[in-house]
């Protein structure tokens, strides 16, 4: 019963978030602010993680391919496909669920307990549309950009490990990156990332928006946002992969 109550409340919040806002210019301004918070401020973490993961996948793949009959450029193929198919979308989304999800839940949670959301409501402003919608728009627009960035930086990380670590000749790595390339993988990853953005922002917003109590409950909502977003991202990954790659 409690589960059904939350499902119902979640969809009611979404309906309010997507209802006509008081002023479109205010939503636009908020969206620009959120793009900075949700997107631009996540650049550095995505770059650092993708760079190292790209380099490590290259080293590990080389370490595990012992058969001399297999060409070395297959390492490039493996790195590319690992990044494009899973890492840059799902793994980056899980990292962003931790960073962005907890930030959204705690921000809205604090606004709830300090009555800032009530203040919006009594002014006659649809607080869900003003606070939640811009976060969702910003994430849906910007998570796929972060995914693309992760693909580029991850592949560059693999290349750097070839150049600096002498793992395989860089020319063979580049050959592998280009070998049997399927552009469809990119649109597949970007589509998944847009769904993950929706899951993370809407769920975290729901948990933050409905906080009752004080700082302790805000902390709990923030933790729940990360855990539940991560689980739903993994579930969505399975469903979307089954649907899109069938």
């Amino acid at each position, binding site marked *: 019963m409690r589960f059904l109550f939350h499902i119902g409340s979640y969809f009611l919040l979404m309906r309010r978030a997507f209802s006509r806002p008081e*002023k479109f210019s205010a939503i636009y301004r908020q969206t620009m602010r959120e793009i900075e918070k949700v997107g631009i401020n996540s650049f550095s973490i995505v770059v650092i993680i993708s760079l190292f993961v790209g380099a490590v996948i290259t080293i590990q793949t080389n370490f595990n391919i012992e058969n001399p009959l297999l060409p070395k450029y297959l390492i490039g193929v493996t790195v590319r496909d690992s990044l494009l198919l899973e890492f840059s979308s799902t793994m980056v989304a899980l990292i962003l669920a931790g960073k962005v999800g907890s930030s959204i839940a705690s921000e809205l949670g*604090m606004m709830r307990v*300090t009555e800032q959301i009530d203040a919006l*409501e009594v*002014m*006659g*402003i649809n607080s869900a549309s003003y606070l939640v919608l811009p976060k969702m728009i910003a994430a849906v627009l910007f998570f796929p950009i972060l995914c693309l960035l992760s693909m580029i930086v991850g592949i560059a990380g693999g290349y750097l490990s070839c150049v600096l670590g002498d793992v395989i000749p860089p020319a063979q790595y580049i050959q592998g990156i280009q070998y049997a390339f399927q552009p469809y993988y990119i649109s597949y990853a970007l589509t998944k990332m847009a769904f993950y953005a929706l899951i993370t922002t809407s769920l975290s917003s729901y948990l933050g928006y409905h906080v009752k109590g004080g700082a302790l409950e805000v902390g709990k909502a923030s933790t729940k946002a990360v855990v539940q977003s991560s689980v739903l991202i993994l579930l969505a990954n399975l469903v979307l992969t089954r649907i899109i790659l069938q």
Partner: protein
Amino acid sequence: MIEVKHIFKSYDGNFVLNDVSVKFEQGKCNLIIGRSGSGKTVLLKSIVGLIEVDEGEIWYNDQRFSHMNTKERQIIRKEMGVLFQGAALFDSLTVVENVMFPLDMLTSMSGPEKLERVNFCLERVKVSGSNKLFPAELSGGMKKRVAIARAISMNPRYLFCDEPNSGLDPETGIVIDNLIKELTQEFNMTTIVNSHDMNSVLEIGDNVVFIYEGCKCWEGTGHEVLKSDNEALNNFVFATNMARRLKEK
């Protein structure tokens, strides 16, 4: 005028408001007083529509607010100014942006017009030189003043204040109380103030409603409070030994 008719509100079977009926008149400071947990805040939040009552009606002049849908309520809410207990200023906005926020969202005023209105409101509550500060950089009293400026920025017909001087020293508390009274008379608003501060009752209480265990227990003027023979009210008003001794004298 705001009228509350036979409202009930319960949580898990416990009545927080039990058949409360009150009239709050225009141009007066109407005070709701009572002990902590007596149901004052629930009553105030029910009146502004942040809490839905189980039964009963809430009227704003001739409009039945309690039975309106969200869109209909929004029209009345644009005529409300609310001062929350913790001021509820938006953390990410400066003082000017906070006061300008309702004007930005709900009016089509030009930039200079909005700025003129904001400056008027800030001067009216005697806040100057803090325009670019964020709420975290303000003192408790300043936050309350800025919150009042925001509440009156839309020229409201109804002003609601939830414990406006809680957390303030008595002197600053009286300044805030007097400001609320002056604004009520100046703009002829219907003002409802939640308080458990006796200074406020005596200073600004044109009409005082005493809530005891979710029921309206007594109603009168601020000065009648001291002469009442209502036992629950006397226990609340003369809670300290010093106050009791003064009454006996």
